[in-house]
């Protein structure tokens, strides 16, 4: 029996007056790689944001490692969750270098009034080598291209040595060569560490390649939840209809 890493119990999530997710329940086991698939506005990004507490759960409960996620323990859980957002607008003149952006991923774990140790720095160097971003580190983050920023943000999420990864359309902006490279890296990490991962993607090929389980969402609800083979069958039926 696998440990349940994330449990969503009848959650509703909304922004101001609008409810985006309606009474959604599911469980994600430790080490599972789950793809979140569905049309625009289905609530996939909102679901990721609800899991790391960036979007407010208005009803229901979220459990991480069988402990309810709340405002008192949210930072403890966020320190073991890597998150790569879909959109990331920033002023090109911002006085922050790419290497500082990567290190920021580790700051929560480092703690207040402490600076990253040699061990932390070695781990950061290792992650940067894995993502082949060493040549970008001394550049201002705002001056990087969309694809380069994405790789830096992936590194930022990985340097905290996460137990849970939340990827939101991470392959957007990447060229074909880099998509293959990132897929290979994710597979390598998955084989070594078995991080529980939720990945939002519109790309069926990527979902098929990486995910062992797919959750299909529409209008803030789950319309399909199953393995890769059944997902492909459902997709075929949907296309014929």
């Amino acid at each position, binding site marked *: 029996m696998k440990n349940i890493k994330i449990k969503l119990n009848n959650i509703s999530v909304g922004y101001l007056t609008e409810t985006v997710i309606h009474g959604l329940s599911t469980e994600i086991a430790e080490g599972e790689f789950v793809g979140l698939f569905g049309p625009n506005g289905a609530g996939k990004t909102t679901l990721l944001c609800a899991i790391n*507490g960036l979007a407010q759960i208005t009803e229901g409960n979220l459990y991480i490692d069988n402990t309810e996620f709340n405002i008192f323990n949210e930072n403890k859980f966020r320190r073991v969750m890597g998150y790569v957002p879909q959109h990331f607008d920033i002023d090109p003149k911002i006085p*922050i270098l790419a290497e500082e952006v990567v290190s920021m991923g580790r700051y929560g774990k480092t703690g207040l009034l402490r600076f990253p140790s040699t061990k932390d720095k070695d781990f950061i160097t290792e992650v940067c080598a894995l993502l082949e971003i060493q040549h970008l580190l001394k550049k201002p983050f705002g001056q990087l291209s969309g694809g380069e920023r994405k790789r830096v943000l992936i590194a930022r999420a990985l340097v905290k040595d996460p137990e849970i990864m939340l990827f939101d359309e991470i392959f957007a902006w990447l060229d074909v060569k880099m998509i293959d490279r990132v897929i290979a890296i994710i597979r390598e990490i998955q084989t070594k560490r078995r991080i529980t991962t939720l990945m939002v993607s519109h790309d069926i090929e990527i979902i098929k390649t990486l995910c062992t389980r797919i959750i299909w969402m529409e209008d803030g609800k789950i319309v399909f939840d199953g393995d890769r083979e059944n997902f492909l069958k459902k997709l075929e039926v949907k296309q014929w209809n």
Partner: protein
Amino acid sequence: MELIGFAFFQRALFSALLAGIACGIVGVWIVTMRISFIGVAISHAAFAGALLGLVLGKSVIFFSFLFSFLACAVLGPLSDKGQLHPDTSIGIIFSSTLGLAFLFMGVLPEGKSQALNLLWGSILTITHQDTILLVITVALLIIVSILFFKELQSVIFNREMAKASGISATIFFYLILFLSGMTISTTLKSVGGLLVFALVINPAAAAYQITYSLKKMYLLSTLFGVLSGWGGLFLAAQFNLPAGASIVIVSTVIFIFSVLFSPKRVNNEN
């Protein structure tokens, strides 16, 4: 230049040094986080509070603190939760605090000269107590900037991402707002209620044009703040001009030069 020999001018130079450092540090946060609308509202609230202090015959700085903190307490959640567009909230707070300021000015029991001093600033008449408060403010700002450098850098980069990393971004955002309120209140007497915000924004905006390093931006911003203060004081003494206005003019000139010779401008044009 014989003024340098006078104690009041030396005290003014020291106050300009402190005000330049304090506004330079706070300016870095306000400029990089693009929350200048909050800063403007805080400075006007501080001005209204100071005038209420005058009306009641109580401590000007205490009421200035109180009003700026109240403005932070109102504007912080509005900005944090995105429930009100910044244009709307600044419009409401700006106009209402300015309305209150003129109301308090209207009911002042004695002459208006003290109120006008708060409006334009009077760095040459700064007291020993004002200087001590400025020293405390500067010390606090330097300590916070060094001890929480990495947390503040994360919040400056992106508040949501800082939260996602497990940093208490909301607490640091409010810390920034309250320290901004404190700085504006303590520099109000020297630079003036209407002008203090220029000393917060201009040096930091000039530093922003020059460097891609946050540490260098802190240093340049404080350097420009101090240069504005001292340059303004000497201009005022030399040409018999109002000190607060001269300080702001010098800071504006520094900003214009930084834009003209900005390496970032060249990069972006390329």
